[in-house]
């Protein structure tokens, strides 16, 4: 299994899909080279979604640029604004209050829950099992209501600002009580779902052994996030981040690297997120949530990596006169594209979409810096 090397000489049929295709939710172009319905080589081309967010950010005041990073992705918007603020704080040497750090982690873990549920729902929809998909969408509504309660909006919450979190996102007793009830409900429903999901023989036969990414290849392709943990490597950046030090959680891994492992690693990781949220609610310190007495000065390039629902997110800033002089963003799907292409190889062409979905792609946020060469 370690070397799924295609025999390029025998390829006779090319199957193009995209950029807008019924099977794909997001616009991207996929070329499959097929021999006897078995995919021999796959090629993903992105770039149709490029909007040039970095270019708009350059020259803006850093507070405005932070708010703009949220518009990069509608699924992991909180991760972007958190990492953007974190980069700015690292550059300017701002120490945020402890309560703000706890609220940021609660938001991030809620977002991880909703992203993982969306992944499970999307995976079940691609498997043409709409009942499971609807069930997970219903479960996700609980999380979305909690996010809307804290952030004020269902998708882009604008929780973090430079120096803490927005005062309107502060948690009072009523909100904490609703969070507790919501976490109990999510845990119960998810346990029921996983029990039902794993006991479905038809579904299990459809996802076991499909789209295998071997451990060696995953390391070679620099896969990040849950897709890496699904191949059996216990690597999670949360264990190294200082924000997550007060919390006790396990790194979930699955052995096989196929679609089943990918689905299960995300489902089981949701329980760890629930655990972190419960700890955060229990131990949340009192005090201010934001500080405003920081100074602006010119900085060199500062970068920051965090673990987001889909992998590792990278932001880097350089500031000048309180404005952004330089900005680079790399989203987790960028490093997982190689795995998506590799997973397709050796499987039936009907499973190709499933193999791509198993790596949790988000092409709208992946279309970042593109160098256009005009001749």
């Amino acid at each position, binding site marked *: 299994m370690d070397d799924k090397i295609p025999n390029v000489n025998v390829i006779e049929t090319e199957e193009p899909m995209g950029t807008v295709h019924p099977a794909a939710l997001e616009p991207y172009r996929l070329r499959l080279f097929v021999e006897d319905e078995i995919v021999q080589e796959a090629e993903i081309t992105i770039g149709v979604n490029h909007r*040039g967010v970095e270019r708009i950010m350059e020259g803006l005041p850093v507070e405005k640029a932070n708010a703009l990073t949220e518009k990069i992705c509608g699924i992991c918007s909180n991760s972007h604004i958190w990492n953007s603020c974190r980069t700015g704080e690292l550059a300017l040497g701002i120490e945020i209050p402890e309560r703000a750090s706890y609220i940021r982690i609660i938001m991030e873990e809620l977002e991880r829950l909703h992203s993982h549920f969306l992944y499970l729902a999307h995976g079940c929809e691609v498997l043409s099992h709409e009942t499971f998909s609807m069930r997970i969408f219903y479960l996700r509504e609980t999380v979305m209501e909690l996010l809307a309660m804290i952030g004020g909006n269902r998708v882009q919450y604008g929780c973090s600002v430079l120096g803490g979190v927005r005062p309107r996102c502060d948690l009072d007793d009523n909100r904490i009580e609703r969070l507790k009830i919501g976490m109990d409900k999510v845990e119960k429903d998810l346990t029921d779902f996983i029990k039902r999901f794993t006991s479905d023989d038809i579904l299990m036969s459809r996802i076991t052994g499909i789209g295998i990414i071997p451990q060696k290849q995953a390391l070679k392709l620099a896969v990040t996030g849950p897709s890496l943990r699904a191949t059996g490597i216990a690597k999670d950046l949360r264990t190294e981040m200082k924000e997550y030090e007060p919390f006790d959680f396990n790194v979930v891994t699955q052995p096989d690297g196929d679609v089943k492992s990918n689905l299960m690693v995300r489902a089981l990781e949701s329980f760890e997120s629930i655990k972190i949220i419960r700890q955060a609610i229990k131990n949340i310190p009192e005090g201010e949530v934001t500080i405003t007495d920081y100074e602006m000065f010119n900085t060199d390039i500062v970068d920051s990596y965090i673990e987001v629902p889909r992998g590792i997110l990278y932001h880097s800033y350089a500031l000048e006169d309180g404005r952004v002089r330089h900005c680079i963003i790399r989203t987790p799907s960028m490093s997982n594209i190689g795995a998506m292409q590799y997973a397709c190889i050796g499987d039936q062409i009907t499973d190709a979409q499933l193999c791509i979905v198993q790596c949790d792609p988000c092409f709208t946020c992946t279309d970042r810096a593109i160098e256009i060469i005009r001749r």
Partner: protein
Amino acid sequence: MGVKSFSRARAIHLMLVYTGGCNGCDIEIVNSVLSPKFDAEQYKVFLTWNPREADILVVTGPVTTLNRKPLEKIYEAIPEPKLVVAAGSCALMGGVYKNIHGDIPSEEIEGPVDKIIPVDAKVPGCAVRPQDVLSGVISILPKLIKSK
């Protein structure tokens, strides 16, 4: 009510096309059709990904340069009668991506959706709420059912 309108009112298909937004509106629209909480299927509105089957086209995103042609082709592929719903502030006015620094227009963005194809209903919001999507889609259903 003729036979045509009668049958049409019972199987309305909604197609969603992404033209380079941030995915937030798209998830909310899929959510409003598939999720049991909002459930557009109670109004006989079903989600499809096939333009030949669709009656209503829901467009999100600020139409990037490379997405303009696919959008026009999809609009042409939908049989008459067809209606278009533009959802989200990006589709209505270009959103935050429209201009770089004040009023310098961005080269990547081809502008709001109504510059490219005719739009029948506009749903504001960043990101749109599923309730708004439902009311936007349902408000244009009589137009679709009554048309010859």
